[in-house]
């Protein structure tokens, strides 16, 4: 396979980039990124959410064209117009969402699209099986190739995703958070597989924010933060604390908020637990949220935050534990009943769950309030009352739009999020469950949204803030609770929260 890619091509690193930049409106997703992954190495790309990793991957795959800068293959500039161009250059990608096809065996998934054949187009199963066994040996993994995709354990599917790229001739593998869905022993196995493949001359781009794994396996590390390269250096000599500091940065602004004056407990999570396939299970999670305080949940993505959101919002059924809101047991309450008791929910997925993009601003603003007396009587909606309310909210939250009748989808990301905020904070809720409140929002928008959250707290509201932006959590939260592998690992009051200590508990160390 390596001859396709010119194993002996002169000079240059196998895959690299010079000055790669990409903006979405005022948001600079990638800002003059330089990196070079040498042949036969594992090159880690590290950074938090929004650091620009996924945009960079899209550029390297030919899914997005950079605004400026060049992709280099074997040291020579190339232009990828489509994923096929990247594949032809020997670059294959394993996404976080698997692309194996259910209903097919693992072997069938491996050979799909390039099947060894006998007469009449029949698949030569003997050749295919031998090739598969050889690949598994090469990578040092055990795979039962006869399993159907949906029956295979997740680490086997993960390995097949990777081996399939090699089978199809790739020697540069881009792995996007490959350990996110794996349990610790399987993670060790995957890291060993990566090392084996590297030793056979493949080049691996390892995208991760799990620092232990990066330090365990990477030869070189490039750290991204807010779209820029912070550092690009050999992994040797780097320790976890240093890497965490590089990744999260120092808190740039001292906490601006007044100290909180917590009141009575309004939301109590008591021993919550979930099951669930593939994902991390939440285990015995307890937390008490008081009026007038912001509690942040800090953790690397996929360590149980989604489950907390699902259970508190009522979108996921509670299997274990109890929930109380304003003294009432809401464990079995529907989302509607919880909202009636004063729960507001700012969704992390603005486009699908937080807003209805095809509906108008006004229609989005009344969602969840539509049955309140202000907006109508006896099941009828009052368009005049709704229009008045929409004008009032648009003005109060400074939403830039032509008219409240405009579809929300036509607004910028920041203004869309303001619409969602304006709706959720209406009618003085008791608790705001705010998830990734500033994701995909530009700097001006971020400031405005932070203001609103703090103002809500100062007026006596309770906020459960879930964010992947550590900086945001430190700025806003009166307390930070860290979570790892579905369990609570620590709690830090405002100010005392040294970034580094939070970082360590986010990585599984239990705070004393």
């Amino acid at each position, binding site marked *: 396979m390596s001859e396709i890619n010119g194993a002996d091509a002169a000079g240059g690193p196998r895959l690299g980039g010079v000055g790669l930049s990409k903006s979405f409106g005022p948001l600079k997703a990638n800002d003059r990124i330089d990196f070079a992954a040498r042949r036969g190495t594992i090159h880690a790309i590290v950074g938090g959410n929004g650091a620009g990793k996924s945009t960079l991957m899209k550029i390297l795959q030919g899914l997005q064209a950079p605004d400026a800068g060049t992709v280099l293959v074997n040291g020579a500039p190339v232009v990828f117009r489509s*994923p*096929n161009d990247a*594949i032809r250059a020997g670059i294959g990608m394993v996404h976080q969402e698997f*692309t*194996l*096809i*259910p*209903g*097919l065996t693992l072997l*069938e998934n491996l*050979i*799909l*699209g390039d*099947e060894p*054949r006998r007469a*009449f*187009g*029949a*698949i030569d199963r003997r050749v295919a099986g031998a090739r598969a066994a050889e690949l598994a040996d090469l990578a040092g993994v055990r795979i039962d190739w006869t399993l159907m995709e949906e029956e295979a354990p997740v680490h086997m599917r993960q390995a097949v995703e990777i081996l399939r790229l090699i089978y*199809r001739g790739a020697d540069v593998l881009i792995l996007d958070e490959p350990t996110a869905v794996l349990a610790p022993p399987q993670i060790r196995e995957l890291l060993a597989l990566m090392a084996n493949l590297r030793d056979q001359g493949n080049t691996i781009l390892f995208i991760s924010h799990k620092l232990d794994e990066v330090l365990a396996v990477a030869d070189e590390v490039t750290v991204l933060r807010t779209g820029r390269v912070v550092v690009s250096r050999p992994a040797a000599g780097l320790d976890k604390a240093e890497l965490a500091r590089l990744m999260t940065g120092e808190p740039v602004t001292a906490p601006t908020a007044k100290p909180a004056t917590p009141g009575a407990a309004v939301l109590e999570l008591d021993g919550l*637990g*979930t*099951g*669930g*396939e593939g994902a991390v*299970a939440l*285990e015995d999670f307890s937390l008490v949220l008081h009026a007038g305080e912001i509690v942040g949940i800090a953790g690397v993505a996929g360590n149980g935050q989604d489950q907390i959101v699902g259970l508190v919002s009522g979108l996921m059924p509670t*299997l*274990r534990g109890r929930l109380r809101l304003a003294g009432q047991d809401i464990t079995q309450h529907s989302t509607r009943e919880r909202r009636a008791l004063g729960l507001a929910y700012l969704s992390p997925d603005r486009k699908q769950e937080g807003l209805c993009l095809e509906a108008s601003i006004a229609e989005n603003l009344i969602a969840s309030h539509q049955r309140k007396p202000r907006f109508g009587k006896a099941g009828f909606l009052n368009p005049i009352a709704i229009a008045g309310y929409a004008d009032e909210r648009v003005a109060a939250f400074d939403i830039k739009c032509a008219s409240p009748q405009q579809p929300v989808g036509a607004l910028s990301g920041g203004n869309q999020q303001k619409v969602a905020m304006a709706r959720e904070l209406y009618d003085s809720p008791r608790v705001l469950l705010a998830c990734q409140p500033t994701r995909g929002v530009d700097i001006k928008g971020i400031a405005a949204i932070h203001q609103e959250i703090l103002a809500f707290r100062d007026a006596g509201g309770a906020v459960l803030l879930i964010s992947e932006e550590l900086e945001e959590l430190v700025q806003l939260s009166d307390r930070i609770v860290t979570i790892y592998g579905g369990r609570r690992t620590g709690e830090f009051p405002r100010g005392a929260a040294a970034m580094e200590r939070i970082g360590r508990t986010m990585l599984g160390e239990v705070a004393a």
Partner: protein
Amino acid sequence: MITDILFSALVMTTPLILAALGGLIHRSSGIVNVGLDGMMLLGALVAIIIASGGNWAVALVGAGFAGGVTGWLMSLGITRLRANEIIVGLGLNIAIAGAIRFYLKAAYGSSGNLMLPDVSRLPKIDLPLPGALGAVFSGHSILTWIAWALVPLTAWVLSRTALGLRLRACGTSAASAAAIGLHPKRMREGAGFVAGALSGLAGAYLSIGVVGLFNEGITGGRGFIALAAFYFGANRPWATAACALLFGIFDAVQIRLQGRGFPAELIQTLPYIMVCVVLLLLGLAARRRAQGKAASHG
């Protein structure tokens, strides 16, 4: 008596197997084909027109081709114009039925029926089998045996060949298949041709195999029974064929029982009820699996 019923059950099963296998192939590629009935009707008409004063083999080719082109066009509407497959299928049935009646009136001045001279009927194969075996299996048309031969062939192609593998891949996950360089749209269009062609043959079997004339009700909704068969057979060729055989037996029994006070209309609804029951059981099983998974965790 019982041999008569079994013989006619095999006759009734033939068009069901052909159309159901076509529907199965189309569904494996990712499209639920509700237009099988219309393609069958078209095949029946084309076959009898060509076979009148002509040759049954040419008639079969013509019927298969006409059905195939229709199935291909239908798939184009779904793949390229992103039309809803069910609505297109239903619309196609209405349009084809209308077009055929229009044609019969415009070309032959007849309303819904067509009797032509010198129809070259499908040849029947006499097997030298003794007694009851002979009574059941001897004297079937060549298309009956082709239909049954297509069952293992389809099973083999789907499970053992590169083409079948790709077809299933495109049907299950078009995006994943496209990501590795396959062409799900073309695959679906090709499968649409096959589905239409097999339905066309099923229609030809009815017109030049069974009755020797054409009328607008000749399919008797068998395209929808075929739909029930491949749903019930869950995309497995042998299970689908077994289901078609079961429906064929229903059909044969029902004809015998008519006039003896047995409710033929109710028996005819059995395939449709069975589809609903199967979907219900699958849904219940899926829920139990999901609950089991959630409970076993943590």
